[in-house]
């Protein structure tokens, strides 16, 4: 019985030991804390009011650091990276606005007679009829004029007779009489041609033809046959449209940028594809209270008379900003409060740089700070480069110094290149989730192994927030096994795409680096 009991207790003890062992395994794995809920809500003086609407006034959250990236030509091409150049050149901005075509006030003329009379025939008999300069508009019978002409003729005849007179003063008197009557005719604005005819024919013309003083459209016509004309009767208004005005509406905040004399272009819906060139002539010194706009007068020559008054036009005012440092708009990544430009330092080395930008002018930005003329910048796929840069910053991975960084390095850029070759292998040959052995062989360019170097390997897996994965970053120092062969164990968890960066240093100098991407088997 005693023995039986001993056997029983032995067996039981054995069982208990193993159960304890198992429990111990679980225990050690998690200790006392399951899902600890900790509330770290310690009130802080001056804390933000708890409102999401206050988000805009809250200080911006810290931005991600950026690191330079180096990409092979192939990878650059794969995402379609294009480059642009930082240039210093005259910059034009544009203000787009609308306006209406108006008659050039300086080219408007009235047709009036300086004498009274009666209109006989009217040639320019419709409003908006186009008349050329010198084209007859109407004929007029003016008793006043006829009288004056007759007076002139009489004076002329007398003058012929009396010109030989020796009576002192007579010849001079008659000459002045002729002169006076000619002047009178001239003052009545009788065309020279009429005076000449009068002189030659000596006949009084009852019916006087009045010509158009300018070419243009008749915008107003009062001349009708048999109209009694007084000197104050406005018979025609003729507008010369060979030059027109455009009254453009400008918002008050644009006014400061518009300068008289800058060029302007017009487009009109009626003539698609056609643009007109003109210039800013005048800025009206008032702002319309109801429309909150000011008028800007533009002048356009209109030789073909395509622009007609009242026409609705789109005007683009050029604003010259002087000689400026500019970059294409697509070269800037607007990252919240920062503006980032990626500068090409050659050999695929791209450096992120914060820049300060002035106003945008068309598809260009004026650079105030951060760039020099002649630098090459990335102008497409910036987003991807920025992402890569953030990823690289997260890795903190080794990126070789940029070629051309500093004059000295530029001189012997070749010498700065790593001299040793790196050969990487692992056990198992295909990396897998769990423990792996890294093996790195260092050899000089002549193939002889390099010993005594410090070799560190960084295994990195970028974070994938979409997959709920954190970044994993494991730095392992490899120990030298044989001459030139370095080994070390690394526990890779989880499986998936790893980026491995090998850095070998000797006597404080980097002698070789290698970066490779690999996939560890075994799933996440």
């Amino acid at each position, binding site marked *: 019985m005693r*023995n*039986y009991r*001993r056997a029983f207790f032995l*067996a*039981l003890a054995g*069982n208990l030991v193993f159960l304890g*062992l198992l429990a111990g*395994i679980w225990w050690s*794995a*998690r*200790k006392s*804390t*399951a*899902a600890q809920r*900790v509330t*770290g*809500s310690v009130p*802080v003086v001056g804390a933000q009011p*708890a409102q*999401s609407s*206050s988000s*805009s006034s809250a200080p*911006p*959250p810290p931005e991600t650091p950026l690191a330079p990236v180096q990409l092979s030509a192939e*990878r*650059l091409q*794969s*995402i379609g990276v294009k480059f642009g150049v930082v240039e210093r050149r005259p910059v034009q901005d544009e203000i787009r*606005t609308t306006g209406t075509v108006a008659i050039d006030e300086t080219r408007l003329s009235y047709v009036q007679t300086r004498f009274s009379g009666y209109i006989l025939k009217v040639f320019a008999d419709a409003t908006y009829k186009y008349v050329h300069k010198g084209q007859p508009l109407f004929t007029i019978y003016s008793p006043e004029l006829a009288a004056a002409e007759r007076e002139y003729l009489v004076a002329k005849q007398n003058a012929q007779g009396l010109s030989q007179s020796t009576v002192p003063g007579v010849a001079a008197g008659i000459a002045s009489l002729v002169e006076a009557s000619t002047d009178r005719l001239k003052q009545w604005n009788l065309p020279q041609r009429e005076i000449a005819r009068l002189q030659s024919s000596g006949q009084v013309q009852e019916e006087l033809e009045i010509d158009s003083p300018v070419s243009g459209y008749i915008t107003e016509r009062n001349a009708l046959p048999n109209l009694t004309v007084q000197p104050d009767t406005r018979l025609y208004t003729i507008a010369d449209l060979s030059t027109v005005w455009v009254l453009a*509406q400008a*918002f008050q905040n644009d006014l400061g940028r518009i300068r008289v004399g800058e060029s302007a272009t017009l487009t009109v819906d009626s003539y698609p594809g056609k643009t007109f060139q003109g210039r800013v002539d005048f800025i009206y010194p008032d702002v319309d209270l*109801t*429309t*909150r*706009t000011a008028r800007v007068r533009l002048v356009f020559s209109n030789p073909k008379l395509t622009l007609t008054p009242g026409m*609705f036009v789109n005007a683009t005012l050029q604003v010259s900003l002087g000689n400026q440092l500019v970059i294409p*708009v697509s070269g800037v990544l607007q990252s*919240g*409060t920062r503006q980032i430009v990626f500068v090409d330092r050659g050999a695929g080395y791209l450096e992120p740089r914060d820049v300060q930008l002035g106003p945008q002018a068309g598809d260009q930005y004026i650079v105030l700070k951060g760039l020099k003329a002649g630098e090459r910048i990335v102008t497409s796929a910036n*987003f*991807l*480069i920025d*992402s*890569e840069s953030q990823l690289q910053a997260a890795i903190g991975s080794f990126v070789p110094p940029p070629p051309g960084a500093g004059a000295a390095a530029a001189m012997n850029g070749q010498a700065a290149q790593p001299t040793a070759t790196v050969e990487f292998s692992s056990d198992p040959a*295909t990396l897998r989730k*769990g*423990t792996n052995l890294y093996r790195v062989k260092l050899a000089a360019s002549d193939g002889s192994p390099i010993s005594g170097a410090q070799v560190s390997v960084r295994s990195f897996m*970028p974070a*994938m*927030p*979409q997959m*709920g*994965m954190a*970044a*994993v970053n494991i730095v392992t120092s490899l120990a030298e096994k044989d001459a030139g062969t370095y080994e070390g164990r690394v526990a890779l968890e989880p499986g998936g*795409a790893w980026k491995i960066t090998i850095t070998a240093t000797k006597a404080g100098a980097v002698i070789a680096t290698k970066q490779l*991407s*690999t*996939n560890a088997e*075994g799933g996440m």
Partner: protein
Amino acid sequence: MISRVIDWCANNRFLVFTGTLLLVLAGIWSLRNIPLDALPDISDVQVIVHVPWEGQPPNIIEDQVTYPIVTTLLAAPHVKAVRAQTMFGDAYIFVVFEDGTDLYWARSRVLEYIQQLQGVLPKSVSPMIGPDATGAGWVYEYAVIDGSHQRSLADLRSLQDWYLRYQLETVPGVAEVASIGGFVRQYQVNLDPNKLRAYNIPLSMIIDRVRDSTNEVGGRVLEMGGAQYMIRGLGYLRSLQDLESVPVATKNGTPVLIRDVGTVAFGPDIRQGVVEWNGEGETVGGIIVMRDGMNALSVIDSVKKKLAEIKPSLPSGVEIVSGYDRSGLIQASIKTLQRDLLEEAIIVSFVTVAFLFHFRSALIPILTLPIAVLASFIPMYFLHVSSNIMSLGGLALAIGVLIDAAIVMVENGYRHLSEHIAATGASGAKLTEKERRRILMGAAKQVGPAIFFSLLVILVSFLPVFLLEAQEGRMFRPLAWTKTLSVAFSSILAITLVPVLMVIFIRGHLRPESENPFSRWTQALYLPVLRFCLRYRKTTLLLNLIFLAITIPLAWRIGSQFMPPLYEGSSLYMPTALPGISITQASTLLQKQDRIIKSFPEVESVFGAVGRSDSPTDNAPLDMYDTTIMLKPREKWRAGMTYEKLIREMDEKLQFPGLTNTWTMPVQNRLDMELTGIKTPVGLKIQGPNVEGIQRAGAQLQQVLGGIPELRSIFAERVAEGFYINVEVNRLEAARYGLTVAEVQRAVTYGIGGENVAENIEGRERYPINVRYSRDFRDDIEQLKRVVIATPTGAQIPISEVAKVYFSRGPAMIRDEDGLLTGYVYLDLATKDYGGFVAKANRLLNEKLRLPAGYTYKWSGEYEFEVRAKERLKFIVPIVFFVIFLLLYMIFHSVTEAAVLIFPTFYAMTGGLILQYWLGYNFSVAVWVGYIALFGIAVETGVVMVVYLHESLDKRLASGVPLKHEDIEAAAIEGAVQRLRPKLMTVTAVLASLIPILWETGIGSDVMKPIAAPIVGGMITSTIHVLILVPVFFAVMKERALRAGNLTIKSDAE
């Protein structure tokens, strides 16, 4: 009782056969009607509420839509958690219900609670309940391609949206057909703000006029001449010209038409997704989402049939090609497992024939095996367990065990009969039928109870699998069901059908066991070893303990994972960009990627997608690619190519700056996406009232925790990563012009954003009419500043006079968990002692971290589940051991023996560990399931051993001669050696049955192998243990008992 059952069955052969026949027929019927799928759907009972709000950034949707909905739904009954993701233009609210909640009940609760929100949500927002399906229901995807290149993407999208979609949704089992890619056609009225200004027409007037320009109405009826005429007012837009001529105002009697103030054209709606086919160019895709619990295979087949029907009616040149088809995976995996099952059955039959050396006897286990398997489908059908890798795998695991009972039974009957014949004389002819039956029944009754109980042990020991929770529970429950059910059926068959069959089949020339060459050979091998061990007992025990001590530490060298990956015959390439990538940038990369992938000869087709479809089950952000790669069958691959190698090669070629590659497989990914939350073992959730605050808190946490040496890396999710342009109204300035904030914002909504103001109905199709400023007037920030607002005084002013327009960063996606804004911090630890780390980190945080009021953080991560599962197992495993112990006690009526028999489990574990380590399988739930299965089988073989040892000892005790130490040893040897055959038979059956699984390379084998490996490895060591250590223990014990003088005949169990 069991003896009585055996007796009754032997006497009622006809009833037993009828019963068996009915069972087989019912089994066949169930087998044909059970839904088929590749893997069980492991998603929670969840209802997705999808709220699209076009053109709105996440924080606006979060504030105005998501938050009210989430907080309302929190109160709904049986809701476990409400999680929400708000992205650009869409909000997805996942309402997770407690396990076991009826999905349709849950859906109506969600509807009921959303009803309460009437009037609270913005007018243009209407929440929709997602389909009764999950992402795991994406069974088929297709691309609509136009070989003739005659049709635009908008045409293809229309074809998909208005024709294919509805045709395919009629297929039974299809919950939804989602469209992705292409352009959604839209009538676009592009206004010229300058002209509006010139005509002095406010934008709102245009919107009103457009809204009123398309409708048709009815005007009742008119009776004329006994006929009834229906009156209708026509007025749908028939063409772009109709829309162009919509009058918006009259100026001096001249109507101002739309075309006077802008242009009208068809254009694309905002794109949420892009689809690409084989690197050939953009196209349009469709996704068939299967209803929950349907038969995936038959749904896919019906869809394909429907597509074949539709084919002739497609416009010429348009073709529908399959981008993803799960049926291949389902068929292949089912076929793999069917082949495994068949091979197992054949192997097991060979084992039986070889050991028994009597074909007729061997027929009994071979016959009962398929009956047990078939019968287990009957309850499966009623339990809605689908036929998939897991459930068939359960059967595959069970086969070796299923045959055990019959083998032991038959072997015992055979031996008794052959011994009787040998004893009564050389010829068996003298044996009467009655005598034969008595002997066989006696034999059956002798082992019956032990067998029944040992099967019960196997069954009970597997029950913890049922107690697994959540995803792992849903994944392995089908396996547990089939294994348990088939074992249950086989144990019932063992005491009903088998005795009857024994009487029928065990006859003819029965050679004694000693004539069986196989038995002789194994006995010759075993005997000296056992003798040696019995002589040097202490050395044996010590060696064993050392062995145990050496192998257990292996457990620490093996990694762990949730599930072994299943090779699906297709791959999913999912590079992710940082948030904020534009759709144009994303789509140019997509085509490049696809072209590279297609250049691999192993690739059948590439169905590239970026962004999301219009399905509520698809909550992929725009910065996530989702490219399905269908691979050719393995035979067509380049020589020496493996899946891993192929992926590595592709990965090397697909290195795009700014993108992070992820390779996964479609089903696996869909399941992964279901498991929302932090996926690293340890993480922190920061909750608080605003996103920027959360980001700052994350940065602080990162700083505080960064110094802990166990921390390998920490990554606070940058919630505010999206790019924003803000139009911030200056209220004073606005007031100066008499403008309200809303009026300024209307310019943002309509002028810049553009709003779908009406919908034009064109027969079956409907297209939105969108009004906005022309592109020229809103395509850069300088232009945005000049967007014109009409003031009440009639003046039209640029928006920059009353608002500040500037860039900023803001949330690209907002998480909302239980009504609180949430940000994740992911930690990667160099230690496995998560608890210790959390405690340490907490101390540090309490000391150094000062968060503003309203912000909290809590620890989270997958380790929670792991901890929960371990907690559960910690509780369950002792209970299981105790139950096994009780069962053993019931069999042997001895505490000691029961305790001794628990031992084989540890030795089983060592073998399992060795094989697992050797094959390189990580610890996963699958492996643990294998171990749990192993324990039962290991105990069972121990039971069989002890039964025989007792039998042999009892024989000696019964002779009445006082026993000596030598007798006990002799009895142990006799019991162990002579009864080697049945033991080896059962073990070999289990081992051999699993060999096909380990050899299998077909689709589906990757999941089964890690389950089978511990069993195979464990069976080997536990058999050695049972064969050597159990007799040693037995001898030690019995000798002690002898010395104590209390060695008595063991009464038969029961």
